[in-house]
């Protein structure tokens, strides 16, 4: 069964970019593939199943409970945390970062686990650039003299600066 859907759902929540935008980068399949190739399908499955079992966030108090569970069960897991963090970094920069050596010692070996840029296009599609209202150095140039104006930082759901909690 394709893990694309839950992978995108998880990615959207942890990157704070909506699924359509993630799909718009054209990188979803290759990122999923990258993660599966490196840490194994089963381990990723476990992460995604855990993710799907989190309480749905409809009310503010449940939202908090969900974030706490996400933090405790996934990001706080010795085994799954580094993978979750790597998925965020993949989306933001197009780069797979080598997992911490403690992870490899406990759960390795993962022979393909080295720092690399998934593809030239994944660098260009990194979310980092969109998030800060810039563009990847060397691509998607914004146009002559655009740099003299203030940046357009796109608004996003849940922005703590917009909705102080």
């Amino acid at each position, binding site marked *: 069964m394709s893990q694309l859907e839950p992978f995108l759902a998880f990615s959207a929540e*942890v990157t704070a970019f909506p699924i359509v935008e993630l799909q718009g980068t054209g990188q979803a399949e290759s990122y999923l593939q990258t993660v599966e190739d490196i840490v194994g399908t089963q381990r990723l499955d476990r992460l995604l199943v855990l993710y799907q079992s989190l309480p749905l966030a409809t009310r503010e108090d449940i939202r908090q409970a969900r974030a706490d569970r996400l933090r405790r069960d996934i990001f706080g897991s010795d085994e799954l945390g580094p993978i979750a963090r790597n998925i965020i*970094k993949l989306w933001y920069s197009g*780069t797979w970062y080598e997992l911490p050596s403690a992870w490899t010692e406990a759960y390795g070996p993962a022979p393909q686990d080295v720092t690399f840029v998934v593809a*030239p296009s994944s660098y*260009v599609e990194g979310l*980092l650039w969109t998030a800060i209202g810039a563009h990847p150095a060397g691509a998607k*140039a914004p*146009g002559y003299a655009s*740099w003299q*104006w203030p940046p357009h930082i796109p608004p996003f759901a849940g922005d703590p600066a917009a909705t102080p909690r």
Partner: protein
Amino acid sequence: MISSIKKTSLAEIKARLEQHPIEAVIVGTGISGAIIANELTKAGKNVLLLEAGPGTNLTLQGYNEFLSNFYGATSKDNQAPYPVNPNASMPRSTNLRKLQPGETDSATYMVQSGPYVTDTNYTRVYGGTTMHWEAKTPRMLPEDFKSQTLFGQGVDWPLGYDDLEEFYQVAEREIGVSADVEDQSYLGVTFPKDYVYPMKGLPLSYLDQQVAKRLDGTEVELYGQRYPLKIRPFPQGRNGIPNDKYDRGQGYVPVGAVSNHQIEIGERCQGNTNCVPICPVQARYHSGKTLAKAFQRATGSIHLLVQAVASRVVIDPVSGRVTALEVKVYKDPKSSEHETVTIAATIFVLASNAIETPRLMLASGLRSSSGLIGRNLMDHSYLLSWATMPEICGTMRGTSVTGGIIDLRGGAFRRHQAAFSVDIHNDGWGWAVGSPYSDLTTLVDQYNLFGPELRRGLINRISSQLLLAFMIEVMPSESNRVTVDPQYTDQLGNMRPVVSFTVPEYTMRGAAYAREFARTVFARVGAADQSRYDPGDYGYVAYNGQGYAIRGGNHLAGTHVMGNDRNRSVVDTNQRSWDHPNLYLVGGGSMPTIGTANVTLTLAALCYRSARSMLDQLQ
């Protein structure tokens, strides 16, 4: 633009050599070699260009491959676009490490014999180092040419600003400089009445403006004199809006991308923030643009041999004249297989930069009767200071640098300490700590942020970055030098350059003041200082109880110094060797001092001047 640049095969060159004697052999296709080639072909001379690199970027496809290499590279350092080539290697900053006293590190192509480890670099590909230069093009100040007389520091040039002024204009035309005379007339720099730059100045970035708003009009005091501060735009060798007043109203037509077939890109700078290491649209000047003109005009009298590494200069011991150049022509960068050919010509021009030119001379056993070949190596020392602005400034947009502070490029304080020019980096803390990637890993891995908190955290942290890069003057010192040593060779058996360098005390005094100055600027703009220098950094220099991470400036100079006295210089004011009358050593190596100007505009001006002398000699 259409052009007919093409490589010529070794077999063709050999066949031609028998029928048409070559008038000038030029080693290197960087800006120095390109200017000389273009000037000589204008006068109908028969020219052979030798390039150590493979020349794959002659085509747009090849150029774009460099770009794709860059996108796909994990380390986005200066040399990331350029494939490793053991037959024509180049220095690379990612492989450096700190040296213990007395230690030599030969793990990188440019052997570091210390004590200071420099991450300065250059590119050995078609187009030379202009393939990845940043293209700031300030002129030297008139006072820079007389630093011994005025400040008791360094040496005076055998030429003055007025001697070079007309050649500065020619170089500005060729490079296609965007700037406004009003902004560039300072500290004695003058322009002829009615002069305008080819293109209008590039506007200051929003970040520059946020700094200017709080800093402009303030002053600093140094040795009893006050210096007013102002953020100004730098002149840039990248396409902006042509100035229709140029050339007494004739205007200027920018040169776009060049290739060996017609293409339609590369007019105006689009703000790719990637001038270093490679401009995707060729808005920024590279010497392929100059060579394209030469090839277009003079098909038949200019030839290019790539994968051709000049390996020995052969001299007639009686007359001192160069009789030939020995060149190793390799088939494949991966293999050392090569053929050695001997090329004769009327004049020989070494334009292979201030490290490779002395390296070749020394490897040929030619030390110059002055003993100065390879000595007086200069390069600007950079000190970085970085901080967080009090608000979002849109960092990571625009050309690498649009504005900075030039008010301390000149002044009476130069009796005591080095001058500097300050860049405001539009690419944030990238140079200092690897932003924005390091910000991402810090916030995700260390701060444990995800979701909206992460996204907001990245915005706040990256978009408010301010980095000041101080480009500090370095005066000549004979012990700072390039040498060769038979125990260090490359895949073709050519001796590699060995660099010994100590950052002079005069420069360190400037660095210490630069650090103080940065604090003052941060205080005035309300920025939070984040700078720190790690004692384990390869460029760490201790001075007066403080430590500073000093970076190389990529502005190599001094190693075949020009002068009026053949016992105290290697070349004359035409960059012609005193010892070898048909040999020219051109480029930054000829510069006696470098002041606080990025060297390329000045070395280009010198090349235009020298081309006249070459033509006289070839009459």
